[in-house]
């Protein structure tokens, strides 16, 4: 009989050898729980993320923008679905996860608690928020848990148009009329710092990171990814001809990276506490959709039951 210690050792050895852990493999309870929480949060973020952008579908200013935005938001539903499916392989049901989201017990990415106030916000969200998400997601394609890694491969393939769509909108506006340029700059001003906070607290304020790195659920640190993000955005914003709202932002030739200003984490913590501009609206919308849809789901189930017992001639 293997002891707990033996099992854990063998498990860690597989992880260290870059082997994939699959749902039926032995895994420490904590690994399972961490993944359920992380994948769940990721899935919830996709679903809630449909709302700020979904706001502008009916107001998209051209038919091309309309179909692109509709397809993008639809992709996010799909991403949520793939991720819920991955989490379900670990023994939790989709309905259970919804229950935790709707009751406020489960978290989702704070970025979606901000409002989309203008069409330019759709550009900024696609460029910055999806940009940041992609930086987080590409490494996850190599995460140790098979279903999560494979879901992420699919997500990343679909995500590539999301950021381009956003950037294209920003380009059109930034190089458009004076009013459009102003709209774009205003959106950038409001979305920059929240996007920076998407990468999570600084490494020294991140207690769980070490274990997640050891289990290869997390492949890069928060600060590493955030630095990469700033470096890339710094280049791209110049093509746009807009200004990032950080007076301390400048290229450091010595380090080969951008220096940037201190993040004010108080706003982040307030949002986590539920005091963001849209926390209530987002949860209300999700709860309403779920509750309003209950009779539909019940009808479908009842219909299927009937057909099972009385097959059609």
């Amino acid at each position, binding site marked *: 009989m293997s002891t707990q210690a033996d099992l854990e050792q063998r498990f860690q050895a597989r992880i260290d050898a870059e082997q994939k852990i699959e749902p039926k493999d032995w895994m420490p309870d904590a690994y399972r729980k961490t993944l359920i929480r992380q994948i769940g949060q990721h899935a919830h973020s996709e679903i809630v993320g449909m709302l700020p952008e979904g706001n502008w*579908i009916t107001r998209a200013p051209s038919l091309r923008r309309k179909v692109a935005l509709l397809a993008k938001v639809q992709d996010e539903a799909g991403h949520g679905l793939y991720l819920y499916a991955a989490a379900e392989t670990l023994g939790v049901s989709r309905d259970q996860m919804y229950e935790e989201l709707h009751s406020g017990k489960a978290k989702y990415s704070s970025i979606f608690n901000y409002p989309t106030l203008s069409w330019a916000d759709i550009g900024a969200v696609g460029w910055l928020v999806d940009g940041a998400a992609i930086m987080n997601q590409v490494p996850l394609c190599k995460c140790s848990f098979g279903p999560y890694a494979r879901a992420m491969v699919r997500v990343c393939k679909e995500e590539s148009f999301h950021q381009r769509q956003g950037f294209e909108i920003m380009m059109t506006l930034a190089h458009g009329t004076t009013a459009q340029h102003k709209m774009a700059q205003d959106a950038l001003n409001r979305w920059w710092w929240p996007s920076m906070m998407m990468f999570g607290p600084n490494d020294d304020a991140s207690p769980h990171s070490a274990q997640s790195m050891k289990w290869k659920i997390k492949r890069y640190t928060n600060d590493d990814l955030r630095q990469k993000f700033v470096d890339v955005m710094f280049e791209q914003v110049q093509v746009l001809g807009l200004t990032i709202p950080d007076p301390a932002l400048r290229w450091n030739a010595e380090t080969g990276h951008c220096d940037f200003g201190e993040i004010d984490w108080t706003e982040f913590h307030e949002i986590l506490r539920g005091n963001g501009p849209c926390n209530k609206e987002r949860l209300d919308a999700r709860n309403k959709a779920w509750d309003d849809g209950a009779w539909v789901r019940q009808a479908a189930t009842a219909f299927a039951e009937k057909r099972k017992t009385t097959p059609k001639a």
Partner: protein
Amino acid sequence: MQQYLLHLADNALILGHRLSEWCGHGPALEIDMAMTNISLDLIGQARNIYEYAAKLEGQGKTEDDLAYLRDATDFRNVLLVEQPNSDFAHTIARHFLYDTYNFYFQQKLCESSDKQLAAIAEKSLKEVAYHLRWNSEWVIRLGDGTPESKERIQTAINDLWSFRGELLTPAAYEKDAVAAGYGVDLLGIKKDVEHRIFEVLDQATLLRPEDGWMQSGGKIGRHSEHLGFILAEMQFLQRAYPNSTW
């Protein structure tokens, strides 16, 4: 021909736009995604026809000029497609009534003497075949599901019944289109459309509403109060910031 094309495109755009309002609010993820697919199909169909209409007009207009810069009186969609989503049952009923018409309509449009219109119809037909299938199945599921779902879908069918007449009643420009060879004779598809509607209602164990007064006017620009609000939302940016590229 312009009026005819606008009628076809406006139907598709307004219906697709209405359906897109569900995105993010559907009863289940899979259903949400299915409805968005249908919405994308419809808006795509509208784009194809607007592009053609703009080209034919020859005044350098684009699909967006047609979609975003006409007021309600210049829209030629039927009243049915502008009806609000209300609950899931009303949405399904609206699409079901439209799809039964649209499926047989597109079938006939494939035989249009206008090659471009026929080509657009061939592509649309594949999409609409799926729409009809998907929406019919939901009518049946809801009709033969729970007592609550049966009541809701029956109410929805009853509420929207008076809007289906307009679909099969030709406006003057439709009669011209038939005479010229590029349009669809609505009388020719009436039997198939109604047969399909009744067949599905029966399978759904739903009652067929009595045929009463049929609402109309959309085809000639006399719309319900809903279209004004739809356009106000859809066209806002183009109207507030004219002469801009988006």
